């Protein structure tokens, strides 16, 4: 027994040493942390170092008190602008890399490291890079790097979520298929100028949004194989404000200021940013004990109330550019009539649902466009305020008659609905429970299947029509700045339904399809807004997809954070160079 215990103890101690020192912490490139370190050792940045003399003249870079501490959950480590696929990875990417364009607080695209011109036929976008841009390793950023970044997305090897961004460029299908070695869509004109050619027929004001991805340094990322390329994900190098100092999977990402940032007037004030994995349950504790500067807790009235009375923190909210929605499977006999769908919405008290979960941090959804967008129609939309009589009348009109067992029937079909609910977050369960009560009164036999998010996605998307076994499910998403509705959940012809596209409602109308395309191709913003209003009115009446709510995002920061600028179109990384910490 003693021996076993002794062995266990010995093993534990050994593991402490291994775990403490080891791991595969990805320390940044040697020049990332302390390029000006006097002694050349990598740990010279500690407060006791005293040998450093950074570009800004402050001794002891980085000062631990001048590091912004941010809470994350689920950083995946795909720190590459063309591969990152979750919001926290995206934050890291936007701190390290820079895109050619950006957008302002109103959602208007603005030059970032390049200015652009569009040809009169809207088919050629010519970008001119600013002078003397360099990557954090000192190498100049040129048109070649821009072309390399976009060509990589189009290349046959590419596996990632950004393919759509180059899909409208000329010659994409041939290049992607490997039929040709030259990508017609991208043309390097000179060291500072690069032109993108849009394929005929794909011109749209929405195309500009694809030119904001961070630019990769070709001399680092132009490697032999795709595996070599993705191996660079955890040690990214870009031209942005910050550089990677240390990344430990499931622990933290530590970034330091890029002291050699090319645009000296825009250099960040912070010495660094520490993004630590902190579970939602510990966020309040972390703020109370002063271990955190910035976080986005889940949107809930409980959270809002807790942070509002907490000392030493500031809490703010803003309407998000997105919405939550409820998808009807319109191909089932129960839900094919739009009056039935309207009846279901009239008998679902969304106002009560929002007040219960979100308090004032949400509003009733009307159309698949966020109220923050210029395309949002300000009038004429039905909010389907709770009205059981109206709901009953609509059911009667649609021919669904109340049966003896309290369930409506029509032509041999019972009004049986199956709602797929995921329990990863609370709101779908709450909404479906609310519906279960009021819809029973309406004569609907609702069954609720609870599962995880991935399963809902698997049972609804990518499933051929005849195998779709659901009536309703809910989801939420953030939308792009451009209000374009094509390719989404709204019934496109090329979203071939039997192959299981994203149009899970199965609802398709040729005139709506054409109008979505017309709106996508229209360059006059006033006319575009009119088209989106017409579309919003159609969706609001037909309800293939009922928009449930518009949500707010909640942000909490410690009192020492100054200069924070957050809005629906600009996240905290946009102007992070202006953030300072009062100690």
């Amino acid at each position, binding site marked *: *027994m003693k021996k*076993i*215990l002794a062995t*266990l*103890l010995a*093993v*534990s101690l050994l*593991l*402490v040493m*291994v*775990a*403490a*020192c*080891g*791991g*595969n912490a990805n320390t940044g490139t040697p020049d990332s942390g302390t390029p000006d370190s006097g002694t050349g050792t990598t740990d010279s940045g*500690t407060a006791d170092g005293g040998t450093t003399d950074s570009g800004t003249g402050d001794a002891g870079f980085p000062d631990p008190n001048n*590091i912004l501490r941010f809470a994350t959950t689920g950083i995946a*480590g*795909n720190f590459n602008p063309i*591969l990152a*696929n*979750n919001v926290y990875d995206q934050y890291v990417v936007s701190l390290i890399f820079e895109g050619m364009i950006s957008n302002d607080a109103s959602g208007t695209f603005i030059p970032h490291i390049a200015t652009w011109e569009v040809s009169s036929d809207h088919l050629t976008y010519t970008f001119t890079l600013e002078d003397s841009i360099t990557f954090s390793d000192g190498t100049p950023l040129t048109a070649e790097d821009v072309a390399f970044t976009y060509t990589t997305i189009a290349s046959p090897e590419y*596996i*990632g*979520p950004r*393919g*759509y961004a180059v*899909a409208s460029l000329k010659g994409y299908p041939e290049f992607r298929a490997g039929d040709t070695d030259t990508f017609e869509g991208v043309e390097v004109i000179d060291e500072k100028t690069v032109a993108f050619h849009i394929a005929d027929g794909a011109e749209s004001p929405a195309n500009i949004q694809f030119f904001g991805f961070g630019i990769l340094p070709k001399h680092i990322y132009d490697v032999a194989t795709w*595996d070599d390329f*993705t191996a660079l*994900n955890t040690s990214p190098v870009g031209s942005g404000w910050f550089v990677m100092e240390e990344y*430990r*999977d*499931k*622990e*933290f990402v*530590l970034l330091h200021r890029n002291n050699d940032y090319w645009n000296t007037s825009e250099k960040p004030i912070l010495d660094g940013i*520490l993004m630590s*994995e*902190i*579970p939602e*349950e*510990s966020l309040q*504790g972390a703020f*109370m*004990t002063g271990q955190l500067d910035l976080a986005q807790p889940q949107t809930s009235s409980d959270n809002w109330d807790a942070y509002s009375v907490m000392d030493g923190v500031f809490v703010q909210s803003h309407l998000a550019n997105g919405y939550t929605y409820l998808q009807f499977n319109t191909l089932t006999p129960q839900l094919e009539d739009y009056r039935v769908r309207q009846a279901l919405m009239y008998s679902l008290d969304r106002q009560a649902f929002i007040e219960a979960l979100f308090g004032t941090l949400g509003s009733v959804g009307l159309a698949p466009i966020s109220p923050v967008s210029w395309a949002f129609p300000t009038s004429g939309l039905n909010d389907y305020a709770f009205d059981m009589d109206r709901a009953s009348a609509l059911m009667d009109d649609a021919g669904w008659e109340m049966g003896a067992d309290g369930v409506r029937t029509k032509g041999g079909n019972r009004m049986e609905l199956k709602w797929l609910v995921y329990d*990863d977050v609370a709101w779908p369960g709450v909404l479906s429970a609310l519906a279960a009560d009021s819809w029973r009164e309406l004569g609907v036999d609702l069954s609720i299947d609870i599962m*995880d998010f*991935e*399963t809902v*996605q*698997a049972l609804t*998307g990518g499933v051929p029509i005849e195998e779709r076994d659901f009536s309703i499910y809910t989801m939420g998403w953030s939308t792009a700045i451009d209000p374009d509705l094509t*390719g989404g959940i709204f019934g496109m012809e*090329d*979203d071939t339904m039997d*192959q*299981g*596209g994203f149009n899970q409602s199965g609802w398709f109308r040729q005139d709506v399809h054409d109008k979505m395309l017309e709106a996508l191709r229209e360059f006059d913003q006033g006319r575009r807004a009119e088209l989106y209003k017409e579309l919003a009115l159609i969706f609001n009446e037909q309800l293939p997809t009922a928009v449930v709510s518009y949500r707010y995002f909640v942000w909490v920061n410690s009192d020492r954070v100054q200069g924070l600028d957050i809005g629906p179109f600009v996240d905290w990384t946009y102007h992070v160079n202006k953030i300072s910490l009062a100690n």
Partner: protein
Amino acid sequence: MGTYIVRRLLQLIPVFLGIMVILFTIVELSPGGPLSAYLSPRMTPALRAELVERFGLNDPPVTRFFIWLGNMLRGELGSSIRLQRPVVDVLAPMISPTLLLMSLSMVFSVLVGVPAGIISATKQYTIADNSLTVFSLIGISMPSFFFGLLLLRYFSVELQWFPLFGMRDALYKPPNAFANALHVLHHMVLPVIVLGMGGVATFMRYTRSSMLEVIKSDYIRTARAKGLTEKVVIYRHALRNAMIPIITLLGFWIPSLLSGAVITESIFALPGIGRTAVEAVMTRDYPIILSISTMMAILTLLSTLIADILYAAADPRIKYD
């Protein structure tokens, strides 16, 4: 003994293959797939089909099973689909934190549970025994996530004795390896208590009942009759014999520590196999799920084997042939 071990090892092979089949089937039957991370509303069905093809998800399940089994036997774990990194690179840094958490919890469980069990047994039906019994029942029935949050609330937020999250402070620069180890240990105190609590209670119950059984046996009465002091009777004669079932329990306890680590790591935001497994399951990252499950299967098989062997070593009455 040698032949026994060899025979047991050979028996493990069909068991292992059976586990592999079941594992693969379960993963195969779970709805969903690993490609969600790549899907966007703007992705056309053609692009989606191309991705499915690239990841080899189009082959029939039987083909994929044998491809996977072959790779696994050659030690090739493949690449994570979501992270596009080799599984080995993803899992390697996660192993030592989890092993650390598990072994410290085991030590904690034994060091607290066994003495408590002895006290409980030798002082049967006293206040000490009764309160330890109540304590162990609470320890067994308390959900660990609740217990963990309770500890965090009190010791990390109110008193601030222990860190609230993580295995180290990223901004702390330890002057030497010893300070670094202390720093990590400080972070491990609460997680170890939470993960070890169930073990404390279990070891205590087992020790208590095993001790009670031994104390009532004839040779203990003989020892007492010889005039030995109570201390010698209990610690030399009774304890050694009472520990035999506990040794087996040690082996069987390892798998439950591993599953407990999943919850503990999530509450305390520690890096480790448990959290990696949860993330992989939520995103259906097949290569990661299968690799971790295989590791767990091997660990379970080996720990039961070791328990059996230790049992034989500790108890001369048990003979294997």
